[in-house]
């Protein structure tokens, strides 16, 4: 499985955010996206997820399921947590499991140390705990490609270590991760893409 981007150009509101981006990501590889605010890190991740359209260029996932879009084979963890405050932690995850087709709730809660909060209303969680609940989707549902937009925001050291462990396990199983972050992720990224940003 290999994700190849060639000459990608992203346009938002008539303005070119980035142009001529290319990379090739193989199984088991981690790519770190860096660049100043507004350089287009989130735009690139949304573009790969299929939520934005590229103004030019191609994006191919070779070796995946050709019936599915790239987005359907990917996890996208955005700034917004997609957490419903009126549902309990468990209900939040159970919905995504049913809707996206996933595995064991217990294991996912355990991976981000949320078991204790399973029956809590998500509205009672702190910002960091909400982020852990969003990240728990990674452990709940099997997807080969992970698109992580600033996944470490709000996490304490213990939670960061858990995230790093989950990411390492995913890479060791042959998964692929693209993470937009400036925080060291416990292992050297195999690829580094620096979006320069245009002033």
């Amino acid at each position, binding site marked *: 499985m290999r994700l190849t981007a060639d000459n990608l150009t992203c346009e938002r509101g008539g303005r070119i955010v980035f142009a001529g981006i290319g990379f090739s990501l193989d199984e088991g590889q981690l790519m770190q996206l860096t660049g100043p605010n507004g350089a287009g890190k989130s735009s690139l991740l949304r573009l790969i997820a299929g939520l934005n359209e590229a103004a030019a260029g191609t994006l191919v996932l070779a070796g995946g399921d050709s019936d599915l879009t790239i987005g359907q084979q990917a996890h996208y963890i955005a700034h917004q947590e997609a957490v419903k405050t*009126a549902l309990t932690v468990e209900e939040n995850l159970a919905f995504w499991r049913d809707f996206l087709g996933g595995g064991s709730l217990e294991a996912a809660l355990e991976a981000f140390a949320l078991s204790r909060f399973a029956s809590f209303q998500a509205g009672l969680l702190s910002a960091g705990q909400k982020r852990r609940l969003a990240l728990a989707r990674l452990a709940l549902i099997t997807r080969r490609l992970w698109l992580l937009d600033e996944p470490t925001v709000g996490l304490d050291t213990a939670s960061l270590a858990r995230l790093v462990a989950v990411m390492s396990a995913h890479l060791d199983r042959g998964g692929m991760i693209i993470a937009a972050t400036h925080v060291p992720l416990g292992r050297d990224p195999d690829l580094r893409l620096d979006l320069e940003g245009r002033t």
Partner: protein
Amino acid sequence: MKLLWALIRRDIVLTLRQGGGAGTALGFFLTVVVLLPIGLGPNQALMQKLAPGALWIALLLSVLLSADRIFQQDYDDGSLDIMAMGPVPFELVALAKSVAHWLSTSLPLAIAAPFLGFLLNLSPSVILPLFLAMTLGSITLSLLAAIGAAVTVGLRRGGLLVSLLVLPLYVPVLIFGVAASNGGVMGDGVAPAALLILAAIALASLVLSPIAAAAALRSYLK
């Protein structure tokens, strides 16, 4: 199908738990119906004549009260992004959310309408046709409301705009809804015909509205 049911169930649970959904709409419906006799005076014959139309207008307004919530929260918290990437076509997501709105808001209103009719001196012979027409019509009301909700999802305080956009679309439902409810008064055969047209409108919007809503939502996600 199971996936859609999961989405419908979640939306209904959210509406019931968060308040501001079914309860508020029902309360608004009741309030409008209570205010009407006060405004129109104690002429019982006049009231009986006006009751079906008044109930229909109150129903339209009550349905719209919660319409902007159909997609708003899921858009704000990013859930809609993940649904757009999911295994279900986005049109079916829009359909499931419209159905959830119907089950949690419009249908309870349609069921409550005959009871509120007592407050308006609704003629007993009209109760059954009114109930049937409203149940059929309420599906269309939720589906059309979803279009308005989708078109305004990225706007702050888009609630009023939803009403402006959607109320004109409600005109056919109102015309045939009132005709079906008043059938006996207008002559034989009018009520069944109007009911059939209401059903036709419901079927057409069942197909068209999710497509329109999904297209509007997609343009916001970009």
